[in-house]
């Protein structure tokens, strides 16, 4: 063992505390329930602590997010709760170009409040949402996302493109509903 028992615990807690906001935020965005997010985080932290001897020392945040994501996929998604928990069929996913006929322009993204983006994100099906969260919010590379979600990089690329398109669609609906843009309007 590289560390003594107490040293190991201290080191783990130091690492984990520094990335915990990201872990909790991801868990919350995945489960969309604070209670479930706390449970998911506790389970992930316990798993990570027990496996800390096997951590390769490179990217702790990516390693912990991988545990959280795997737990969510393996455990929580099996429960199949909620209409958005299921996976959208890859081939049947909305084509991004089709959704972009009514696009909010970049000003909308610049001005959009976090709450609206969060709301739009929650409408994206789980597989795509996980990929978008890990990439755009947590800044993981394609390879790290592929490891975390246990899919090939090609699948990560396609999920990311489709996930972002679905998010834009959801945001466009919000923009139309709020009168920020008009329906059918092509935005420059």
């Amino acid at each position: 063992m590289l560390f003594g028992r107490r040293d190991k615990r201290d080191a783990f807690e130091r690492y984990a505390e520094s990335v915990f906001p990201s872990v909790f935020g991801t868990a919350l965005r995945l489960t969309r329930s604070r209670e479930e997010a706390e449970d998911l985080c506790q389970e992930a932290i316990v798993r990570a602590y027990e496996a800390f001897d096997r951590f390769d020392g490179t990217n702790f945040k990516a390693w912990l997010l991988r545990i959280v994501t795997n737990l969510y996929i393996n455990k929580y998604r099996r429960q199949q709760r909620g209409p958005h928990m299921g996976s959208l069929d890859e081939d049947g996913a909305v084509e991004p170009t089709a959704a972009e006929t009514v696009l909010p322009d970049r000003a909308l993204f610049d001005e959009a409040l976090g709450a609206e983006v969060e709301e739009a994100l929650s409408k994206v099906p789980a597989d795509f949402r996980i990929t978008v969260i890990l990439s755009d919010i947590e800044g993981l590379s394609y390879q790290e996302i592929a490891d975390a979600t246990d899919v090939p990089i090609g699948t990560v690329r396609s999920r990311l493109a489709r996930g972002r398109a679905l998010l834009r669609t959801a945001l466009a609906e919000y923009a139309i509903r709020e009168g920020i843009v008009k329906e059918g309007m092509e935005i420059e």
Partner: protein
Amino acid sequence: MRDVETLHAYVDRELSPEQIAAFEELMSQDAELRKQVALVQAQKMAMVNLNYGMECEDAWKKCKGRIAEIESARRTENFVSRYAWALCASLILMIVVGGGWQRLNGTSNSNGTAITEMMAGFVPNRQQTSTPAEVQRWVEGVFDFAGEATRPDRLELLAMEKGVSSGKMVERHWIKDGEGQIILIAVEGHVPMTGMTPASEDGKYMVGHVGKANCIGWYKPNYTVFLMGERPTENLKVAAIRLCSMIK
């Protein structure tokens, strides 16, 4: 090269330098593509802004609590696995010491061998087998027909045996009274009442049990008497006191 996934990979900086150069060449000739790239970049920035400090102090405290629980359980496991032999040895020692103490001081004692031998293990002495009339006289002598509780009409001699156990004369009498059967054992001389405890302050009566039966014993000048029955010791003691005062 103008496909959506490449566009996203460009924004995410996941293309090789050659792919980046090729894509930027394409962008320089395609205004629509530049617009698409700007849109995805704006979207990505909006998402990055979501990475704000989220209130999660309570959740972290709970996680730390779980880690503390794991460590506590581990410490216990380590202690048990390291000192299992000592725990087992202590347990065995406790059993041995407890057993010894119980044997020396306990109340649920047994005068095992001696009384058991007297009850079942003696050698029949056919030469000295009494006639029914002799037995009846002996019982009458023992009980003396005194007192209401030992009235002859309330006593019934079921069986009687005489024999020798460990070189001593023994007589056994199965007697029935108003409360059931009792066994009276009279042994020649004084036999030790090992394992029995005093039932009274003067130590005249000793109590114990053999199997399910309670037993009370006392000494007479030339013999030792045991009274046994499946009834409370106190009940036997009352009968013994009465008998003691009556036996000549």
